[in-house]
Protein backbone atom coordinates (compact mmCIF):
# COMPACT_ATOMS: atom_id res chain seq x y z
CA UNK A 1 0.00 0.00 0.00
CA UNK A 2 2.85 2.33 0.87
CA UNK A 3 4.55 1.44 -2.40
CA UNK A 4 1.39 2.22 -4.39
CA UNK A 5 1.08 5.56 -2.58
CA UNK A 6 4.73 6.38 -3.24
CA UNK A 7 4.44 5.42 -6.91
CA UNK A 8 1.27 7.45 -7.33
CA UNK A 9 2.73 10.57 -5.72
CA UNK A 10 6.39 10.11 -6.62
CA UNK A 11 8.23 13.45 -6.95
CA UNK A 12 7.43 15.89 -8.44
CA UNK A 13 3.78 14.72 -8.09
CA UNK A 14 4.08 14.81 -4.28
CA UNK A 15 3.40 18.57 -4.55
CA UNK A 16 -0.21 17.68 -5.49
CA UNK A 17 -0.74 16.56 -1.90
CA UNK A 18 0.24 20.02 -0.67
CA UNK A 19 -2.09 21.70 -3.16
CA UNK A 20 -4.99 19.43 -2.09
CA UNK A 21 -4.22 20.15 1.59
CA UNK A 22 -4.09 23.91 0.93
CA UNK A 23 -7.41 23.84 -0.93
CA UNK A 24 -9.10 21.70 1.75
CA UNK A 25 -7.61 23.83 4.52
CA UNK A 26 -8.87 27.06 3.03
CA UNK A 27 -12.33 25.58 2.44
CA UNK A 28 -12.61 24.49 6.07
CA UNK A 29 -11.10 27.73 7.39
CA UNK A 30 -13.67 29.68 5.36
CA UNK A 31 -16.50 27.85 7.15
CA UNK A 32 -15.39 29.03 10.56
CA UNK A 33 -13.80 32.38 9.76
CA UNK A 34 -16.75 34.52 10.84
CA UNK A 35 -16.57 33.06 14.35
CA UNK A 36 -13.23 34.84 14.63
CA UNK A 37 -14.57 38.14 13.36
CA UNK A 38 -12.99 37.84 9.91
CA UNK A 39 -15.23 37.88 6.82
CA UNK A 40 -14.91 35.22 4.11
CA UNK A 41 -13.79 37.89 1.64
CA UNK A 42 -11.05 39.10 3.93
CA UNK A 43 -9.90 35.53 4.57
CA UNK A 44 -9.76 34.76 0.85
CA UNK A 45 -7.99 38.03 0.06
CA UNK A 46 -5.39 37.68 2.79
CA UNK A 47 -4.76 34.05 1.76
CA UNK A 48 -4.38 35.03 -1.87
CA UNK A 49 -1.98 37.93 -1.25
CA UNK A 50 0.02 35.93 1.30
CA UNK A 51 0.32 33.03 -1.15
CA UNK A 52 1.64 35.37 -3.85
CA UNK A 53 4.09 36.86 -1.32
CA UNK A 54 5.11 33.32 -0.28
CA UNK A 55 6.02 32.37 -3.85
CA UNK A 56 7.75 35.64 -4.77
CA UNK A 57 9.39 36.08 -1.35
CA UNK A 58 10.77 32.53 -1.44
CA UNK A 59 12.40 33.17 -4.81
CA UNK A 60 13.75 36.63 -3.90
CA UNK A 61 15.23 35.34 -0.65
CA UNK A 62 16.88 32.44 -2.52
CA UNK A 63 18.29 34.80 -5.16
CA UNK A 64 19.71 37.11 -2.47
CA UNK A 65 21.41 34.17 -0.75
CA UNK A 66 22.95 32.99 -4.04
CA UNK A 67 23.57 36.34 -5.66
CA UNK A 68 26.85 35.29 -7.31
CA UNK A 69 25.15 32.41 -9.16
CA UNK A 70 22.31 34.63 -10.35
CA UNK A 71 24.62 37.48 -11.39
CA UNK A 72 26.17 35.06 -13.91
CA UNK A 73 22.75 33.70 -14.98
CA UNK A 74 20.24 36.53 -14.35
CA UNK A 75 17.46 34.81 -16.32
CA UNK A 76 17.45 32.14 -13.62
CA UNK A 77 15.58 34.62 -11.40
CA UNK A 78 12.41 34.00 -13.40
CA UNK A 79 12.99 30.32 -14.22
CA UNK A 80 10.24 27.86 -13.32
CA UNK A 81 12.44 25.60 -11.15
CA UNK A 82 10.64 25.15 -7.83
CA UNK A 83 13.98 24.18 -6.28
CA UNK A 84 15.19 27.80 -6.44
CA UNK A 85 13.24 28.57 -3.30
CA UNK A 86 13.91 29.52 0.30
CA UNK A 87 10.98 28.46 2.53
CA UNK A 88 12.06 30.65 5.48
CA UNK A 89 12.16 33.77 3.28
CA UNK A 90 8.83 32.71 1.77
CA UNK A 91 7.21 32.43 5.22
CA UNK A 92 8.62 35.79 6.28
CA UNK A 93 7.24 37.47 3.13
CA UNK A 94 3.81 35.84 3.60
CA UNK A 95 3.69 37.01 7.24
CA UNK A 96 4.66 40.57 6.28
CA UNK A 97 1.83 40.68 3.73
CA UNK A 98 -0.59 39.15 6.23
CA UNK A 99 0.34 41.87 8.76
CA UNK A 100 0.12 44.64 6.13
CA UNK A 101 -3.28 43.46 4.86
CA UNK A 102 -4.66 43.18 8.40
CA UNK A 103 -3.43 46.70 9.24
CA UNK A 104 -4.90 48.13 6.07
CA UNK A 105 -8.29 46.49 6.68
CA UNK A 106 -8.10 47.30 10.39
CA UNK A 107 -8.37 43.63 11.30
CA UNK A 108 -6.68 42.10 14.33
CA UNK A 109 -3.67 40.07 13.12
CA UNK A 110 -4.42 37.54 15.86
CA UNK A 111 -7.98 37.11 14.57
CA UNK A 112 -6.71 36.54 11.03
CA UNK A 113 -4.19 33.97 12.31
CA UNK A 114 -6.98 32.28 14.31
CA UNK A 115 -9.16 32.14 11.21
CA UNK A 116 -6.27 30.57 9.26
CA UNK A 117 -5.40 28.00 11.94
CA UNK A 118 -7.45 25.19 10.33
CA UNK A 119 -5.65 25.93 7.06
CA UNK A 120 -2.25 25.59 8.78
CA UNK A 121 -3.35 22.39 10.55
CA UNK A 122 -4.47 20.68 7.33
CA UNK A 123 -1.38 21.91 5.50
CA UNK A 124 0.74 20.24 8.19
CA UNK A 125 -1.00 16.91 7.46
CA UNK A 126 -0.40 17.41 3.73
CA UNK A 127 3.25 18.16 4.41
CA UNK A 128 3.67 14.88 6.32
CA UNK A 129 2.04 12.93 3.49
CA UNK A 130 4.09 14.67 0.81
CA UNK A 131 7.25 13.79 2.75
CA UNK A 132 6.05 10.17 2.85
CA UNK A 133 5.51 10.19 -0.93
CA UNK A 134 8.92 11.74 -1.60
CA UNK A 135 10.74 9.65 1.00
CA UNK A 136 12.12 12.81 2.63
CA UNK A 137 12.07 13.63 6.36
CA UNK A 138 12.87 9.93 6.91
CA UNK A 139 13.27 8.18 10.24
CA UNK A 140 15.97 6.29 12.07
CA UNK A 141 16.30 2.54 11.52
CA UNK A 142 14.05 0.50 13.80
CA UNK A 143 12.96 -3.08 14.56
CA UNK A 144 9.45 -1.99 15.51
CA UNK A 145 6.68 -3.86 13.65
CA UNK A 146 5.27 -0.65 12.13
CA UNK A 147 8.62 0.32 10.58
CA UNK A 148 8.54 1.06 6.85
CA UNK A 149 11.08 0.00 4.27
CA UNK A 150 12.74 3.15 2.98
CA UNK A 151 16.19 3.81 1.58
CA UNK A 152 17.31 0.21 2.07
CA UNK A 153 16.40 0.03 5.79
CA UNK A 154 13.36 -0.56 7.97
CA UNK A 155 12.77 2.89 9.46
CA UNK A 156 10.48 4.78 11.79
CA UNK A 157 7.62 6.12 9.61
CA UNK A 158 8.35 9.66 10.85
CA UNK A 159 6.34 11.18 8.01
CA UNK A 160 3.29 9.21 9.20
CA UNK A 161 4.03 10.18 12.81
CA UNK A 162 3.93 13.82 11.67
CA UNK A 163 0.70 13.35 9.73
CA UNK A 164 -0.96 11.53 12.67
CA UNK A 165 0.16 14.18 15.19
CA UNK A 166 -1.10 16.95 12.89
CA UNK A 167 -4.42 15.09 12.45
CA UNK A 168 -4.85 14.81 16.22
CA UNK A 169 -4.14 18.55 16.59
CA UNK A 170 -6.69 19.26 13.86
CA UNK A 171 -9.34 17.08 15.56
CA UNK A 172 -8.66 18.87 18.85
CA UNK A 173 -9.01 22.30 17.23
CA UNK A 174 -12.12 21.24 15.34
CA UNK A 175 -13.87 19.77 18.38
CA UNK A 176 -13.30 22.73 20.66
CA UNK A 177 -15.46 25.81 20.30
CA UNK A 178 -13.50 28.63 18.63
CA UNK A 179 -11.98 30.74 21.41
CA UNK A 180 -13.45 34.27 21.23
CA UNK A 181 -10.22 35.88 22.47
CA UNK A 182 -7.95 36.72 19.52
CA UNK A 183 -4.76 34.68 19.24
CA UNK A 184 -5.62 31.85 21.64
CA UNK A 185 -6.63 29.35 18.92
CA UNK A 186 -3.56 30.05 16.76
CA UNK A 187 -1.13 29.99 19.69
CA UNK A 188 -2.65 26.75 21.01
CA UNK A 189 -2.09 25.24 17.57
CA UNK A 190 1.48 26.64 17.54
CA UNK A 191 2.26 25.21 20.99
CA UNK A 192 0.84 21.76 20.14
CA UNK A 193 2.73 21.67 16.83
CA UNK A 194 6.00 22.75 18.48
CA UNK A 195 5.48 20.11 21.20
CA UNK A 196 4.81 17.36 18.67
CA UNK A 197 7.89 18.35 16.65
CA UNK A 198 10.03 18.47 19.79
CA UNK A 199 9.00 14.88 20.51
CA UNK A 200 8.97 13.45 16.98
CA UNK A 201 12.23 14.96 15.75
CA UNK A 202 13.99 12.46 18.01
CA UNK A 203 13.03 9.71 15.56
CA UNK A 204 14.27 11.54 12.44
CA UNK A 205 17.49 10.45 10.72
CA UNK A 206 18.05 13.67 8.76
CA UNK A 207 18.82 15.92 11.72
CA UNK A 208 21.55 18.50 12.26
CA UNK A 209 23.71 18.25 15.35
CA UNK A 210 24.66 21.61 16.85
CA UNK A 211 26.62 20.69 20.00
CA UNK A 212 27.02 17.71 22.34
CA UNK A 213 24.80 15.67 20.05
CA UNK A 214 21.82 18.01 20.51
CA UNK A 215 19.57 18.28 17.48
CA UNK A 216 19.04 21.74 16.06
CA UNK A 217 15.42 20.97 15.07
CA UNK A 218 14.47 19.99 18.63
CA UNK A 219 16.14 23.09 20.10
CA UNK A 220 14.20 25.28 17.63
CA UNK A 221 10.96 23.48 18.52
CA UNK A 222 11.67 24.05 22.24
CA UNK A 223 12.15 27.80 21.67
CA UNK A 224 9.00 27.92 19.51
CA UNK A 225 7.14 26.24 22.38
CA UNK A 226 8.53 28.78 24.85
CA UNK A 227 7.47 31.65 22.55
CA UNK A 228 3.95 30.19 22.15
CA UNK A 229 3.54 29.76 25.92
CA UNK A 230 4.76 33.33 26.57
CA UNK A 231 2.44 34.81 23.94
CA UNK A 232 -0.46 32.65 25.15
CA UNK A 233 0.00 34.01 28.66
CA UNK A 234 0.14 37.59 27.35
CA UNK A 235 -3.01 37.05 25.26
CA UNK A 236 -4.90 35.39 28.13
CA UNK A 237 -3.97 38.27 30.46
CA UNK A 238 -5.05 40.89 27.95
CA UNK A 239 -8.31 38.95 27.37
CA UNK A 240 -8.96 38.82 31.14
CA UNK A 241 -8.41 42.60 31.41
CA UNK A 242 -11.03 43.28 28.75
Amino acid at each position, binding site marked *: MLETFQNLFAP*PRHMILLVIAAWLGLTLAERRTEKFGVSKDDLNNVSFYSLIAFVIGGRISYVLQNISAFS*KSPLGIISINPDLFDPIGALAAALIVLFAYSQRKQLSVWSVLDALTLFFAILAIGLGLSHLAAGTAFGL*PTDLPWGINLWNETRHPTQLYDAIASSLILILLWRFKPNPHPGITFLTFGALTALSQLFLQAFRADYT*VIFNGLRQEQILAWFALLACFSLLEIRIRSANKT
Partner: protein
Amino acid sequence: MNRTQRIILYLLILIAGASWIALSAETGEATATGPAPQAGFLAPDFTLQTEAGETYTLSDLKGQAVLVNMWATWCPPCKAEMPAIEKMYNEYKDQGFTVLAVNNTFQDDPFNISPFAENYGLTFPILLDQTGEVSRNYQIHSLPSSFFINRHGIITEVIIGGPMSEALLRTRIEEALK
Protein backbone atom coordinates in the same frame (compact mmCIF):
# COMPACT_ATOMS: atom_id res chain seq x y z
CA MET B 1 -7.08 27.16 35.41
CA ASN B 2 -5.58 30.18 37.13
CA ARG B 3 -2.36 31.96 36.16
CA THR B 4 -0.12 30.13 38.68
CA GLN B 5 -1.42 26.74 37.57
CA ARG B 6 -0.86 27.64 33.93
CA ILE B 7 2.72 28.78 34.55
CA ILE B 8 3.49 25.60 36.50
CA LEU B 9 2.08 23.58 33.58
CA TYR B 10 4.18 25.54 31.04
CA LEU B 11 7.32 25.04 33.14
CA LEU B 12 6.69 21.32 33.56
CA ILE B 13 6.19 20.89 29.81
CA LEU B 14 9.33 22.93 29.03
CA ILE B 15 11.42 20.95 31.55
CA ALA B 16 10.08 17.65 30.15
CA GLY B 17 10.88 18.92 26.62
CA ALA B 18 14.43 19.87 27.58
CA SER B 19 14.92 16.45 29.21
CA TRP B 20 13.64 14.72 26.07
CA ILE B 21 16.10 16.75 23.94
CA ALA B 22 18.97 15.67 26.20
CA LEU B 23 17.74 12.06 26.24
CA SER B 24 17.49 11.86 22.46
CA ALA B 25 20.84 13.57 21.85
CA GLU B 26 23.33 11.63 19.78
CA THR B 27 26.87 12.01 18.65
CA GLY B 28 28.32 11.11 15.28
CA GLU B 29 27.02 11.25 11.77
CA ALA B 30 23.51 12.51 11.23
CA THR B 31 23.09 10.70 7.97
CA ALA B 32 22.85 7.05 7.11
CA THR B 33 25.91 5.13 6.02
CA GLY B 34 24.59 2.74 3.36
CA PRO B 35 24.02 3.75 -0.25
CA ALA B 36 20.60 5.10 -1.29
CA PRO B 37 19.40 7.56 -3.95
CA GLN B 38 18.56 10.29 -1.43
CA ALA B 39 20.32 13.41 -0.17
CA GLY B 40 22.63 12.60 2.75
CA PHE B 41 23.35 9.04 1.60
CA LEU B 42 26.28 7.51 -0.23
CA ALA B 43 25.44 7.47 -3.96
CA PRO B 44 24.74 3.92 -5.21
CA ASP B 45 27.73 2.82 -7.25
CA PHE B 46 27.52 1.73 -10.88
CA THR B 47 29.72 0.86 -13.82
CA LEU B 48 28.49 1.69 -17.31
CA GLN B 49 29.94 2.10 -20.77
CA THR B 50 29.72 4.81 -23.38
CA GLU B 51 28.78 4.03 -26.97
CA ALA B 52 32.50 4.04 -27.79
CA GLY B 53 33.09 1.34 -25.16
CA GLU B 54 34.78 3.50 -22.51
CA THR B 55 33.95 2.29 -18.99
CA TYR B 56 33.08 4.65 -16.12
CA THR B 57 32.62 3.66 -12.48
CA LEU B 58 31.06 6.24 -10.21
CA SER B 59 33.18 5.30 -7.17
CA ASP B 60 36.37 5.91 -9.23
CA LEU B 61 35.39 9.58 -9.34
CA LYS B 62 35.69 10.11 -5.55
CA GLY B 63 37.44 13.42 -4.96
CA GLN B 64 35.35 15.06 -7.70
CA ALA B 65 31.87 16.56 -7.54
CA VAL B 66 29.62 14.62 -9.91
CA LEU B 67 26.26 15.29 -11.50
CA VAL B 68 24.52 12.04 -12.43
CA ASN B 69 21.82 13.06 -14.88
CA MET B 70 19.29 10.40 -15.94
CA TRP B 71 17.78 11.19 -19.33
CA ALA B 72 16.35 9.94 -22.62
CA THR B 73 16.33 11.41 -26.13
CA TRP B 74 12.51 11.52 -26.30
CA CYS B 75 12.16 13.51 -23.07
CA PRO B 76 11.54 17.27 -23.77
CA PRO B 77 12.81 18.66 -20.42
CA CYS B 78 15.94 16.46 -20.76
CA LYS B 79 16.60 18.14 -24.12
CA ALA B 80 15.89 21.58 -22.70
CA GLU B 81 18.42 21.28 -19.87
CA MET B 82 21.30 19.76 -21.86
CA PRO B 83 22.76 23.09 -23.10
CA ALA B 84 22.87 24.42 -19.51
CA ILE B 85 24.51 21.20 -18.26
CA GLU B 86 27.10 21.37 -21.04
CA LYS B 87 27.83 25.03 -20.24
CA MET B 88 28.24 24.31 -16.51
CA TYR B 89 30.41 21.26 -17.24
CA ASN B 90 32.82 23.42 -19.23
CA GLU B 91 32.77 26.17 -16.62
CA TYR B 92 33.41 23.95 -13.56
CA LYS B 93 35.36 20.92 -14.87
CA ASP B 94 38.70 22.49 -13.99
CA GLN B 95 37.53 22.82 -10.38
CA GLY B 96 36.91 19.08 -10.12
CA PHE B 97 33.35 18.79 -11.42
CA THR B 98 32.15 16.16 -13.86
CA VAL B 99 28.89 15.01 -15.41
CA LEU B 100 27.78 11.43 -15.99
CA ALA B 101 24.77 11.58 -18.28
CA VAL B 102 23.12 8.18 -17.91
CA ASN B 103 20.86 7.48 -20.86
CA ASN B 104 17.91 5.20 -20.04
CA THR B 105 18.78 3.12 -23.09
CA PHE B 106 16.34 0.36 -22.09
CA GLN B 107 13.54 2.88 -22.73
CA ASP B 108 15.19 4.71 -25.61
CA ASP B 109 16.22 4.18 -29.20
CA PRO B 110 20.01 3.67 -29.10
CA PHE B 111 20.35 5.02 -32.66
CA ASN B 112 19.14 8.43 -31.50
CA ILE B 113 21.81 8.91 -28.83
CA SER B 114 24.81 9.89 -30.98
CA PRO B 115 22.87 12.33 -33.19
CA PHE B 116 21.40 13.85 -30.00
CA ALA B 117 24.84 14.36 -28.45
CA GLU B 118 26.20 15.83 -31.69
CA ASN B 119 23.22 18.11 -32.11
CA TYR B 120 23.69 19.58 -28.63
CA GLY B 121 27.50 19.52 -28.79
CA LEU B 122 27.77 17.44 -25.60
CA THR B 123 31.34 16.77 -24.45
CA PHE B 124 30.71 15.00 -21.12
CA PRO B 125 30.47 11.18 -20.95
CA ILE B 126 27.14 9.70 -22.02
CA LEU B 127 26.65 6.30 -20.44
CA LEU B 128 24.22 3.64 -21.58
CA ASP B 129 21.95 1.96 -19.03
CA GLN B 130 20.90 -0.89 -21.29
CA THR B 131 19.43 -3.18 -18.65
CA GLY B 132 17.75 -0.51 -16.51
CA GLU B 133 19.70 -1.62 -13.44
CA VAL B 134 21.04 1.85 -12.62
CA SER B 135 17.59 3.36 -13.13
CA ARG B 136 16.14 0.79 -10.71
CA ASN B 137 18.89 1.34 -8.12
CA TYR B 138 18.31 5.10 -8.30
CA GLN B 139 14.51 4.51 -8.06
CA ILE B 140 13.80 6.67 -11.10
CA HIS B 141 10.12 7.52 -11.57
CA SER B 142 10.51 10.61 -13.77
CA LEU B 143 12.92 11.94 -16.36
CA PRO B 144 15.09 13.89 -16.10
CA SER B 145 16.33 13.08 -12.60
CA SER B 146 19.58 14.60 -11.37
CA PHE B 147 21.79 13.63 -8.45
CA PHE B 148 24.46 16.03 -7.23
CA ILE B 149 27.25 14.13 -5.48
CA ASN B 150 30.02 15.73 -3.43
CA ARG B 151 33.72 14.88 -3.37
CA HIS B 152 33.10 12.19 -0.69
CA GLY B 153 30.52 10.36 -2.79
CA ILE B 154 27.56 11.64 -0.73
CA ILE B 155 24.44 12.85 -2.55
CA THR B 156 23.92 16.52 -1.66
CA GLU B 157 20.79 17.16 -3.69
CA VAL B 158 18.24 15.33 -5.81
CA ILE B 159 16.34 17.24 -8.47
CA ILE B 160 13.39 15.39 -9.97
CA GLY B 161 12.02 16.83 -13.19
CA GLY B 162 13.35 19.67 -15.24
CA PRO B 163 14.58 21.56 -17.08
CA MET B 164 17.21 22.79 -14.62
CA SER B 165 18.25 26.38 -15.15
CA GLU B 166 21.87 27.55 -15.17
CA ALA B 167 21.36 29.29 -11.83
CA LEU B 168 20.02 26.10 -10.25
CA LEU B 169 22.94 24.10 -11.62
CA ARG B 170 25.43 26.70 -10.42
CA THR B 171 24.11 26.75 -6.83
CA ARG B 172 24.03 22.95 -6.58
CA ILE B 173 27.44 22.44 -8.22
CA GLU B 174 29.08 25.01 -5.94
CA GLU B 175 27.50 23.24 -2.94
CA ALA B 176 28.80 19.85 -4.14
CA LEU B 177 32.30 21.26 -4.76
CA LYS B 178 32.65 22.59 -1.16
